């Protein structure tokens, strides 16, 4: 495939799919913060990144919908377009050396082209519930799963939005971690507006007051298409 690069000469391009994590302190980075970090990261890593043509050229990086600010992730995706072929592992190493700790590239693979949203239709999330025994959570989850709908509201950039947290939840399990309490693990469909793990938690809070105040650690574990046994990783 060829695109026009500075001066109008066609250049061969290479598409790379990047899976990265947002960990620890960096989970507080927003989508835009992560995007800026990658734009600088590819420059620091000296990757042959392609630029869009036009009035204000931008590096060709396309981002799949990111985990919310404050939510960690082990499964964020973006795609890069390079103007000359570079070994995928080399790209991973160079990016990791160039990015802030906590925005960590997990895997780089060759890909056919841009990342279509249709390949990312569901996510698996985990919510840590330290100090809360699984036995206390299981009945709450059962009650939630028995609901026909679980309306929740969240203030978004487009104003207050209402969504059905129950409808988006494909599965919801309680993980017992006797030493540290428990955790919720759930598969949630990508919807518009999106139902986030904190929305599900709020819906659970409507069912029971067993949960502590404050925002627990939430992590996206996987992202991909929805298969019969859960999320099929990209």
């Amino acid at each position, binding site marked *: 495939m060829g695109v026009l690069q500075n001066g109008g000469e066609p250049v061969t391009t290479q598409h790379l799919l990047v899976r990265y994590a947002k960990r620890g302190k960096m989970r507080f980075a*927003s989508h835009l*913060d992560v995007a800026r970090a990658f734009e600088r*990261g590819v420059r620091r890593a000296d990757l042959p990144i392609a630029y869009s043509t036009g009035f204000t050229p931008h590096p060709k990086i396309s981002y799949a919908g990111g985990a919310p600010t404050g939510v960690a992730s082990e499964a964020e995706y973006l795609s890069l377009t390079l103007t000359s072929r570079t070994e995928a592992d080399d790209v991973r190493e160079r990016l990791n050396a160039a990015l802030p700790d906590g925005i960590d590239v997990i895997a780089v693979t060759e890909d056919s082209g841009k990342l279509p949203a249709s390949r990312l239709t569901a996510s698996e999330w985990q919510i840590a519930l330290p100090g809360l025994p699984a036995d206390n959570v299981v009945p709450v989850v059962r009650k939630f799963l028995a609901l026909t709908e679980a309306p929740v509201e969240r203030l978004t950039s487009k104003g207050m939005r209402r969504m059905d947290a129950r409808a988006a939840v494909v599965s919801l399990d309680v993980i017992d971690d006797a030493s540290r309490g428990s955790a919720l693990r759930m598969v949630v469909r990508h919807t518009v507006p999106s139902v986030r793990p904190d929305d599900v938690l709020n819906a659970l809070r409507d069912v029971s007051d067993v949960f502590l105040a404050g925002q627990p650690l939430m992590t996206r574990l996987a992202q991909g298409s929805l298969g019969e046994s859960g999320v099929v990783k990209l």
Partner: protein
Amino acid sequence: MPVESVFPQLEPLLPLVRKPVQYVGGEVNSTVKAWDATDVRWALFYPDAYEVGQPNQGIAILYEVLNEQPCVLAERTYSVWPDLEQLMRDRGVPQFTVDAHRPVSAFDVLGVSFSTELGYTNLLTALDLAGIPLLAADRTITHPVVLAGGHAAFNPEPLADFLDAVVIGDGEEAVLAITRVIREWKQGGCPGGRDGLLLSLAATGGVYVPKFYDVTYRPDGRIGRVTPNRAGVPASVRKHTLLDLDAWPYPKAPVVPVAETVHERYSVEIFRGCTRGCRFCQAGMITRPVRERSITTVGNMVKGGLKSTGFSEVGLLSLSSADHSEINEIAIDLADCYEGSNVGLSLPSTRVDAFNVTLADELSRNGKRSGLTFAPEGGSERMRKVINKMVTEEDLIRTVTTAYAGGWRQVKLYFMCGLPTEEDEDVTAIADLARKVIAAGRTATGRKDIRCTVSIGGFVPKPHTPFQWAGQCPPEVVDDRLRKLGAALRADKTYGRSVGFRYHEGTPSLVEGLLSRGDRRVGRVILAAWRDGARFDGWSEYFSFDRWVAACATGLAETQVDLAWYTTRERDYGEVLPWDHLDSGLDRDWLWEDWQSAVSPHGAGEVEDCRWTPCYECGVCPAMGTEIQTGPTGERLDGRRLLPVLATNGR
């Protein structure tokens, strides 16, 4: 003993606040050192939000200079927004550094850089959150030395109660000298306690310790005398001047923010100082003489800075960048080096001069041409003479014509309102000027969609300038003139929609004026305002004029002086000014003569730039033992592809 991170206490608060990423650190090029591996530890504080403070060049330089020293640790701390401040108070989380989230109170020095007086109340918030007593007199040997620097510290008197020490001038060598004094004091078992350290610092002649000076007042409220109150303390404290900027190429690898900030670029200072002699300009007066960085160092810094940061923008900073002796070569060579690399180059500060447009054209060769900014500062020719901004209307029209013809769509013009001797006509003249600018642009381009934005701010007389004696224009007069200007701009419909008008109310300027030229008695006003909730006074959504007026009433209740006395009152030659014992090198008589010349009834006298004309004896070089350091060096940058002759008569 290692110092524990407060992050575990901070972390649960972060989901509850706006833009939490600003508080987490971990940025590329940030430095975390083992506490116990170092012996002198600095917390560098910028008294505004991270988004403003992080790009600050002064903090970036000192952070690197200090951290390059093996036994020195420097971390950064910024003002937290009121949402987090409240949560920190509720949960007992102290002011922390973003690098390792160490409590600020554990450091040896809390170094605060003041770019503007409106950051003063934010110092009190940080001290209070840190658990450091607000008043220097209440601090003990366990507390950090609270040390101020930056341009606004050239008159630190309003903060005298809250500061332990002050450095005026360039910080690079000063922080290292202070580090040595602290190390010796600590290694020697802290002889003399806290005062022992402060005395050693004061004895260097380059560190001002306010509490070692007594101030007396005359019955009418004016200052009587400022005198040292113990032996070994100099009568006046000198500013620091860094010579040979090529030997100090900082910042080399500045921190790359994850949060969005006001300047997202690698900035290199191409020279320091300015001798254009604009009478209102404190920066130009206190940073003399001009010291250039050579084209070679600039080129190396840009190369290294881009590589270490990944920024795609480069700013060539200085007080008047087109005045560098080799700016032409710098512009051509950098544009050559980075052609096709999607690196944007810019000169953030531009004088009204067609040559500047040519430079901007050259630097933006590969990028977009959106807007150019020029600062005529005064609306009428007479006004510009008063402020010694030697720009004629013809210069301005020629400059904007070149800009519009070169493809720039928008020109922004900066002005000031409330200048000495100003009349209504001097301000409404700006409307005329704007119309002429648009007309010239339409003629040059044959299009109607070019724009001009008039941006105007209230003038605040500053210490160490010829206008330090001036009466500040009352805010109601400024506001009235701005209303008249707005009406004049809107009056002509043929141009009205092509001209944008941006202005601020006059009242924040009056408070800035109070803090700029205040003396020690203003400390109580600051404390009263802060106790009443003053925070982030540089932000219009937080600033309250009524609060400051009330704070003046309580804080100055036991004095003969008031807000007007500090601001709108003109001073005379004989009055002792609060900063007279802080030596910026400027000859007081020269400043006075320049002030008199500005307001002369026979028309203002003009002062040329001493880089190109004989020395006019402002006093700085002999007083400070410094010299003008300029090129040309005759060198060129590697990597340029060709040596075109730069057209100087527009394109």
